[in-house]
């Protein structure tokens, strides 16, 4: 079977994230990391391959983004993907979550995957949602925020998935092909070997534009997006709390107790 893993480049946690006031879009300077949740998705693909319940022919990392997004693909390949696909086109700039999901789905159709995996969220934007958008376009069953996944060879090949939902833990049986987003509790991603890091740039990489995957230009980008975002404003100010740097722990504890006592909390 073929597994596609959707990956995304996100701002480094140490970089201050901001909106460019002139465009209303995220200022994507300073981005350089593979979204940490996506490393769990790649690891999940590797564990299916190594688990032996099904034969995995290929693991393909797929991303959409500007030229710098290639770094996320290299990282994904160093973690185990066999090759990668990079959708990049000026017409995609400013796409909202629905347009992005449509563009990714069109790109995935070219690969005909049996399983699409992705991280359940990224710190910089569209939490939890992209998998569900992609799944509806691909007409595949879908589950998000999965923390345990076991393959049953079948036929039909199925995944037994667990996740936390509104009322406790749910166990759901999903028939392939399917789109699954995973949480960070699903596994502990491995570290890439030096050899894998060095070799990542040599693995095949398809660079695609929207015409290559039959994406309608009027359904993507700012003009093809159905949401207009703007009017950025500051949230209501919350008075900053008091901060104590712990140098002398006895003294710190005394201060905490006094603070609690003042508020009649002890």
């Amino acid at each position, binding site marked *: 079977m073929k597994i596609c893993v959707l990956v995304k480049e996100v701002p480094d946690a140490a970089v201050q994230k901001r909106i460019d006031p002139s465009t209303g879009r995220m200022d994507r300077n300073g981005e350089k990391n593979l979204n940490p949740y996506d490393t769990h998705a790649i690891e999940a693909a590797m564990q299916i391959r190594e688990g032996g319940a099904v034969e995995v022919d290929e693991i393909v990392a797929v991303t959409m983004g500007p030229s710098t997004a290639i770094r996320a693909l290299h990282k994904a390949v160093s973690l185990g993907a066999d090759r990668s696909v990079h959708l990049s086109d000026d017409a995609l700039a400013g796409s909202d979550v629905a347009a992005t999901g449509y563009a990714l789905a069109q790109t995935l159709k070219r690969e005909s995957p049996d399983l699409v995996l992705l991280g359940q969220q990224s710190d910089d934007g569209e939490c939890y949602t992209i998998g569900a958008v992609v799944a509806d376009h691909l007409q595949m069953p*879908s589950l998000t925020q999965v923390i345990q996944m076991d393959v049953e060879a079948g036929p039909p090949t199925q995944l037994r998935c667990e996740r936390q939902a509104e009322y406790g833990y749910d166990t759901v049986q999903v028939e392939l092909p399917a789109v699954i987003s995973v949480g960070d509790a699903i596994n502990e991603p491995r570290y890439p070997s030096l050899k894998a890091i060095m070799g990542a740039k040599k693995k095949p990489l398809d660079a695609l534009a929207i015409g290559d995957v039959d994406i309608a230009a009027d359904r993507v980008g700012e003009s093809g997006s159905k949401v207009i975002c703007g009017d*950025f404003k500051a949230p209501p100010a919350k008075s900053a709390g008091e901060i104590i740097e712990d140098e002398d722990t006895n003294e710190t504890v005394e201060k905490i107790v006094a603070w609690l006592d003042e508020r009649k909390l002890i």
Partner: protein
Amino acid sequence: MADILVYALHYEGAFNKNSLGAVSEGARLAAEAGGECHAVVVGGSDLTDELCATLGRYGAAKVFRAEAPEGLAQPVIDVMAKVMDDNGHRYALFGGGLLGFEIGAGLAARLNAGVTMEVTGVNVVGGELQAERPILGDSSISTSKYKDRGIIIGRLNAFEIRGDGAGDAVVESVQVELSPWSTRAKMVQRGEQRGADVDIEGADILVAGGRGLGKAEGFELCDELAKAFGGNAAVAATRAVVDAGWYPYAAQIGQTGKTVSPKLYLAAGISGAIQHKVGMQSSENIVAINKDANAPIFEFSDLGIVGDLNKILPKLAEAVKAKKGS
């Protein structure tokens, strides 16, 4: 017309609180925009006429009821897409929770609509809805406007429940043929509780632990401190450590866990991700201990201590015990 369709999740004979908040909010918005608020419910035979009609108390004029598997998003997408197409609803609204994200996003794909998630406020401007969403770690608020149909997914607890509606809602059963892919996911077990049963919702003081505790045994420090406070104090946990098996599910705070507002919330080794924050931000007093001075939790705590919790918690437990004894 700007009619609004609200998804009402239910489980074991009761509607979800976030759904009831969304119905209340939908009714308020529809009244202001000159439309009606309708609810949609999907499930089995336990969705009786009587139960569905109670949504009228929260402001739903009509309830569309469809029989389909429950607890999964895709059957609901099929139902809502059909109801919205047949009845011309312009907006769909969801209360906070996992299913709302999945249904709302899938529905946006199906209807080629605009979607906004993590919404904390909705306004009517010129007869149209505009959604406010905090972004970039809640440091800024962005406003979404919709070119055509709009799908609005609330953040947990964003919408207040108001039970001041006119009375019973009209209940209309709808027949919807499910998409083939919607039937290829099946619920095996729903709502399983794991680990010990802990009551954190009634506690006045909560000592909550996160990944910063380092290991499951780290919770002993939290237990000791809660014990020192005595009386109505309990220990709570973040999703990350519950999923890792360090502490029981019943003690989980946040997006998929419980929402609490104790007199004192003491967070140990918790970074303060949005998904956690939504479950505890209405606590009266928030004290955070974290070794990372840049942890987001310091931005919404009343007292923040930058330091090693392994050194601070045991001494704090001792000092609290001594203070109580004095």
